[in-house]
C-alpha cells in the first residue's frame, strides 16, 4: 500500500476510533439548549446493573395481623388516649414485630401462637422463594423476618420491580371466572366440592410472536371440555368494549387480560398480553399462575402492598461503586496502552488502537444487546478484564514472534508474515476453547452465570476479531505508512542490506 493511501487510512481510522470511544465512554454532560436532547450520556452510563453495583428494590410482606414495630408505634401514637391501652393489649411483641391476638387473624388461638398459622406461613415462604427463583435474577434475596414477615430484594435493573413484588405476594387460590369488566364470577363447575383446578389446567407458559408477548394456557381434556362449554357465551370483542370473557385470578386479583372466543383453540388458550419487549412482565404472570396452580391458596392474606411501600436501596458495594470501578478500569486501560508504546514503539500504538477497539465493541454490545435483563455485574467486570488482558497478551506474543523471525535474519515484512502465521492457529485454538466455554455457561448456567456466559461470549468474540483480523489490518496500514520499518518495531540489526 502506498504511503499516501495508508496515511489517509490512518487518519480516518483515528477519527473513527476517537468518535466511537467518545460514544462509549465520554463523561456525561448537560447540553446548553433547552429544546430537544438535553444531555449527553455515553454507552457506559446506560448499563443495567445487578444489586452488587446498581442497588435494587426491597419490600416487606406482612400477613394481616402482623405489623412492624415502627408501624405499631405510629398507630399507637395516633390512637385516642382512651383506646391506647386496648390497642396495646391486642398485640404481642415478637422480636421487631407485633402480632395480633385477635383470633380472627388466626395468629393467636386460645391465647397461644397457632401452630397451623406458622405451618401455613412457612409453606408460603417456600412458595414465594420458588417464585422469585423462577424469575432468574442474577442476584436476589428472600428472607424471613422474626418468623412472621418476609423481606424480598430485587436488582434495580428490573423495570417491573413494583408489579413483581406485588404480584408474587398473592396468597389466593387460582380460579377461572367469567363475566364482563364490571363483574366476574367463578365458573360454576369449579365451585363444586372436591373439584381441583389442576384437573382442568396443565400449566402456563409464555411466547412472543409478531411483536406481541402471549400467555399460553395448556388445558387438560376435562379443561378443554369445560372451556368448549362456555366458549359460546364469550365475545369476540375486548374487555374494554364490554365483551364477555374469562379471566384467571389468584384470589381476588385478576392476572393478565381476559380470554375471548378467538383466543381459544382446542386445548390451548393464547392470550395476547403486551409488547414482545415486555416479555419479562408476561413471564411474571406465568410464574404466579403456575405457582398458584401447583400450591393452591393459603389460609391467610397479606397486608396490601402499594407501590409506595417499595423501597430502593443503594448498591451493595457502595454508592460510588460503579464510578470507582470505572476509574480502576480506566487506569488499567491506560497502563495497557502506555506500556506497549514505551516498549514496542509504533507497534505499541497499533496495540493501543486494538485495545480501544476492544473497549468500543464490548462497551457498545453490553449497552445495546438485551437479553430481557442484561445486567452488568462483577462477573461482567471479570470477563471484560480477562478478554482485555488476553488481547494484549496475544498482541505481545505476535510481537515476540515477529522479533524472533527478524533475529533469524529475515526482512521486516517477511518476519511479520511468518510471525503472524506461527501465532495465528494457537490463538484461534485458544479463542475457540474460550468461546465454547462461554456458550456452555450461557446455555447451562442460570441467572448471573447465564449473563456472564453471554458477556464472556461478547468479550471473546470481540477479542478474537481484534487479535486475529483487526490487529493485522491496523498493523498493515501503520507499517505501510512508516518511513523506517526497523524503528517501527524498535528492531536493531547491524548489517542492513534489506533497505
Amino acid at each position: 500500500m502506498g504511503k499516501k493511501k495508508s496515511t489517509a487510512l490512518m487518519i480516518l481510522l483515528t477519527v473513527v476510533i476517537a468518535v466511537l470511544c467518545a460514544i462509549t465512554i465520554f463523561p456525561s454532560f448537560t447540553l446548553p439548549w433547552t429544546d430537544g436532547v438535553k444531555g449527553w450520556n455515553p454507552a457506559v452510563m446506560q448499563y443495567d446493573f445487578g444489586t452488587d453495583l446498581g442497588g435494587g428494590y426491597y419490600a416487606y410482606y406482612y400477613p394481616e395481623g402482623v405489623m412492624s414495630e415502627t408501624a405499631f408505634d405510629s398507630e399507637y401514637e395516633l390512637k385516642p388516649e382512651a383506646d391506647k391501652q386496648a390497642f396495646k393489649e391486642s398485640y404481642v411483641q415478637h422480636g421487631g414485630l407485633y402480632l395480633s391476638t385477635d383470633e380472627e387473624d388466626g395468629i393467636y388461638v386460645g391465647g397461644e401462637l397457632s401452630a397451623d398459622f406458622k405451618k401455613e406461613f412457612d409453606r408460603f415462604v417456600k412458595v414465594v422463594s420458588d417464585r422469585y427463583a423462577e424469575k432468574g435474577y442474577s442476584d436476589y434475596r428472600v428472607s424471613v423476618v422474626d418468623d412472621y414477615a418476609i423481606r424480598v430484594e430485587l436488582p434495580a435493573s428490573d423495570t417491573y420491580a413494583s408489579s413483581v413484588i406485588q404480584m408474587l405476594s398473592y396468597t389466593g387460590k387460582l380460579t377461572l371466572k367469567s363475566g364482563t369488566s364490571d363483574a366476574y364470577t367463578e365458573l360454576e363447575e369449579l365451585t363444586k366440592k372436591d373439584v381441583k383446578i389442576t384437573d382442568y389446567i396443565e400449566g402456563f407458559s409464555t411466547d412472543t410472536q409478531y411483536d406481541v408477548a402471549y400467555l399460553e394456557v395448556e388445558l387438560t381434556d376435562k379443561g378443554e371440555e369445560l372451556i368448549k362449554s362456555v366458549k359460546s357465551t364469550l365475545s369476540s370483542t375486548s374487555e374494554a368494549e364490554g365483551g364477555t370473557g374469562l379471566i384467571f385470578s389468584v384470589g381476588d386479583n385478576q392476572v393478565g387480560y381476559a380470554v375471548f372466543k378467538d383466543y381459544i383453540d382446542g386445548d390451548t388458550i393464547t392470550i395476547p398480553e403486551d409488547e414482545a419487549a415486555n416479555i419479562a412482565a408476561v413471564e411474571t404472570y406465568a410464574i404466579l399462575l403456575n405457582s398458584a396452580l401447583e400450591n393452591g391458596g393459603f389460609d391467610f392474606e397479606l397486608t396490601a402492598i402499594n407501590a409506595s411501600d417499595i423501597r430502593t436501596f443503594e448498591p451493595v458495594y457502595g454508592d460510588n461503586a460503579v464510578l470507582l470501578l470505572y476509574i480502576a478500569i480506566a487506569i488499567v486501560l491506560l497502563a495497557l496502552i502506555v506500556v506497549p508504546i514505551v516498549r514496542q514503539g509504533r507497534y505499541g500504538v497499533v496495540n493501543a488502537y486494538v485495545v480501544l477497539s476492544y473497549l468500543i465493541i464490548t462497551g457498545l454490545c453490553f449497552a445495546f444487546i438485551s437479553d430481557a435483563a442484561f445486567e452488568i455485574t462483577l462477573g461482567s467486570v471479570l470477563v471484560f478484564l480477562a478478554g482485555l488482558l488476553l488481547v494484549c497478551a496475544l498482541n505481545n506474543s505476535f510481537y515476540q514472534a515477529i522479533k524472533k523471525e527478524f533475529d533469524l535474519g529475515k526482512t521486516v515484512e517477511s518476519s511479520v508474515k511468518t510471525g503472524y502465521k506461527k501465532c495465528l492457529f494457537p490463538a484461534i485454538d485458544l479463542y475457540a476453547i474460550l468461546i465454547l466455554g462461554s456458550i456452555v455457561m450461557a446455555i447451562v448456567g442460570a441467572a448471573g452465570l447465564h449473563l456472564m456466559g453471554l458477556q464472556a461470549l461478547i468479550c471473546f468474540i470481540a477479542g478474537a476479531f481484534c487479535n486475529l483480523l483487526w490487529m493485522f489490518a491496523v498493523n498493515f496500514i501503520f507499517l505501510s505508512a512508516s518511513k523506517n520499518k526497523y524503528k517501527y518495531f524498535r528492531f536493531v540489526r547491524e548489517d542492513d542490506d534489506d533497505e
Partner: protein
Amino acid sequence: MNKKFVNRTIGKPLLLSVIVAVIVIAGIVVGAIFGFNKAATVDDMKLLTVNMDSFVYETELEKVEEICEEAFEDVSYKYSQKGVMSGADQEISYAFDKEENLDTVKKALADELQKAFPDFEIRVTVTTETVEKSLPTSYIVRAAIAGAIFCVLAFAYTAIRHNLATGSAISLAMWLSGALTFAVFTLTRIPVTTAFTYVLFFNLIVTAIAASFTFRKVDETLKTEAGKAMSVDELTQSSVATKEILIFVVATAIALVLVGAIATHTMRMFAISSLVALVVSTFSAWLFAPAVFAPLKKVSDKNAAKRARYDYKKDKKTSEEA
C-alpha cells in the same frame, strides 16, 4: 530461578496430585461440616433499622450516621444499607451477626437520636432475618455442570486439534483449578457471595489461557529438529511458558488489586476472592499442567511407537493361538 523451580515439579506429578487431593478432600470435609462462610448479603443477620422522615434523611443524614457509628463502637457491623421509600419514610439498616445482642445498643441509640433530634420522629428497631433463598440450589448445580462441560469441551477440542496428552493435561488442570479454588475458599473461610460462581468461571478461563501458552510452545518446539530429538521431560521443561504466564497473571493481579484498592471495602473482598482464584489457576496451569503432561505424553508416544512399528508384533495371546 523460576526455571529450576518448574523443572523440579515437572518430574513429580504424583506428589503434586497427592498434595492437591489432600487439600481438596479437606475442603470437602470442612465444607460438609461447616459449609461456606457466607458473606453478609447472603447470610442470616440481625438488622438494626433507623427509620426517619425524608426531611431528616435529606438534611441530617451524616449526623444520624455519626451518632449510629458512635453507638456501635463495641459491636462490629457487617454492612449498611440505605433504603429510600417513595413517600415519607426513609431508613438506614445496619446488619450484624445473628447472635449479637442489640437490645442495649438499640436503647442507647434511640436515646441519643431523641436527644439530637427532639422535634422529629426517629425510630430504632431490631429484627432478625433468616435467609430463605438468595441462590437456589439448582443455580449452583447448573454452575457445576457448566464448569464440568467446559472442561470436557476443552479436552475434546484440544485432543482433536493436537493430541490426547495435551487435551488431557489442559482438562485436568481446569478440573483441578476449579476443585482447588472451592477447597481454598472453604478452608480459608473467605466470605462467599453469589459472585463466587463468577470467580469460579473466571478461574477456569485463566487456567485455559495460561495452560495454552505452554502447550503452544510445546507444539512450536516439536516442529523443530532439536525438539524432535528431545526426551519428553526435556521437551516439557524447555516449553513451559513461564514468562508469558507470569506476565499475564501479574497484569491480571495488578488490575484486580487496582479494583480492590480504589473501590469500597466490599469490593475489596471480591478482588481478594478473584486474586485467590488467580493464584490457584496459576498453580494449575504453570506447575500442574506440565507435570501431568510429561507422563501422559510418554504413554501416548509409547502407544504411537507400538502402532507405527514396521514389524508390528501381535500381542502374546494371539500369537500363541496362531
